[in-house]
């Protein structure tokens, strides 16, 4: 697990907290996580920052029983691939009863605690999703 106190985590905070990605205004495609090169237009692309509206739907999901490091206290938890309304997809937690989550479910983003680093007791935050 990368340390959440290092620059690698903190420098992406605007993106993690506020779902800021990019858009290629040449072809219209949105990217989250942000990309600096559009795979369609490559060097002809024009990349601009874009703040996602945070609404989307569950493409697929799993309920994690053997947790990732730092997530022990939340187990079991739902992880999903969420297709945002803008057309790009990301991986994130969906906060709801594991029995409720399903493919096609509409969700919206919320700002939440992601996990914690047990050694330092550091809590780190980011975007999760809740049912609409």
């Amino acid at each position, binding site marked *: 697990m990368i340390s959440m106190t290092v620059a690698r985590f903190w420098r992406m905070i605007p993106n993690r907290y506020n779902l800021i990605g990019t858009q290629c205004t040449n072809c219209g495609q949105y990217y989250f996580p942000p990309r600096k090169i559009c795979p369609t237009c490559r060097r002809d692309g024009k990349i601009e920052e874009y703040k996602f509206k945070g609404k989307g739907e569950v493409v*697929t999901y799993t309920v994690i029983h053997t947790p990732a490091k730092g997530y022990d206290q939340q187990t079991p938890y739902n*992880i999903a691939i969420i297709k945002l309304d803008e057309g790009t997809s990301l991986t*994130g937690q969906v906060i709801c009863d594991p029995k409720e989550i399903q493919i096609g479910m509409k969700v919206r983003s919320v700002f939440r605690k992601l996990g914690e680093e047990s050694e330092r007791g550091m809590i780190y935050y980011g975007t*999760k999703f809740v049912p609409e």
Partner: protein
Amino acid sequence: MRDVAIIGVGCTKFGELWDRSFRDIFVEAGVSSLEDAGIQGEDIGGIYVGNMSGGRFVEQEHIGSLIADYSGLASTLHVPATRVEAACASGGLALRQAIFAIASGYNDIVVAAGAEKMTDVSPDIATDALAAAADREWEGIVGATFPGLYAMIARLHMHTYGTTSEQLASVSVKNHHNGTMNPIAQFRNEITIDTVLNSSMVADPLHMFDCSPISDGASSVVLTTADAAKKYTDTPVYIKATALACDTISLHDRPDITTLGATVEAGKRAYRMAGLTSKNIDLVEVHDCFTIAEICAIEDLGFFKKGEGGRATYDGETAIDAQIPINPSGGLKTCGHPVGATGIKQAVEITEQLRGTAGKRQVDGAEVGMTHNVGGTGGTAVVHIFSRNR
């Protein structure tokens, strides 16, 4: 380009090798492949070694030097050794680099090896090291585990095609059966569908018995030109194709989560290079890091229509004596999955099969075999085609 052939193979037993070090295992595999080929250290033009994470698993980088050194090939011969890394596909990629070295004319004899020692650290460190095969910043950080990512492939496959947990389990049951006949396998016991379904849930819908284990192991093959091969062995195995394809490192960036685009493309490139189709292949070693991975692989490589892989496996169509034997070795599930070694072990198995020396798990009349080695959730796929005929 020169044609290339395998003239020697070697493999350690795979498993939890508590009493053996990283150095012990690669030396054992390497030496047995040299003995099998009947060559000396002086003959070796170079070594390519697949190793995913020496840094995390044994806190050792600079694996090329270490391997050349402890194989007795560094201090006087100064044999060049190159470490190759593509997560779980490191071994397949090492084989590919070794093939290039021979095909190009740069070297005449090259060793392609793979080694990983995963049980010298606690299982949670090993699991976290494996998670580095996925996108750490945008999959790992939000709590997605490696089994969790494959579980999402499985969930959507079930939703889209009606694949069932029983069909997933049947992959594991078949591979356990094959593993009982493989002396190097970590697990050599028969299981039933209920064994899988009653094992603990790791990431829904994947149970513990849907997942390959954490293992130690090393494997090695010796390559030379097809022209020279018969000088060393009566039964060379010829490389008909090597293909590599990359895809997005994150699962969520793929247009169809149930299709590994890298596998599809590497398969097509390999078929084209060999001038063959899936109908010409007699047996395949696929990358079954999870049961769903085998189902996707046999579909994406063209052996079954998309969505049919689970049903076909459940119906026995991938057994050793069936139409297309998949993972006669027992696969990653039962041989174990020492990540860097897996891609080479697949080539060792195909070589044994095409030589006709695979013992009880021998596929009758095996002429053409394929290996399929995947890194991460499909960011890398390496496919090779082998034949007993030039």
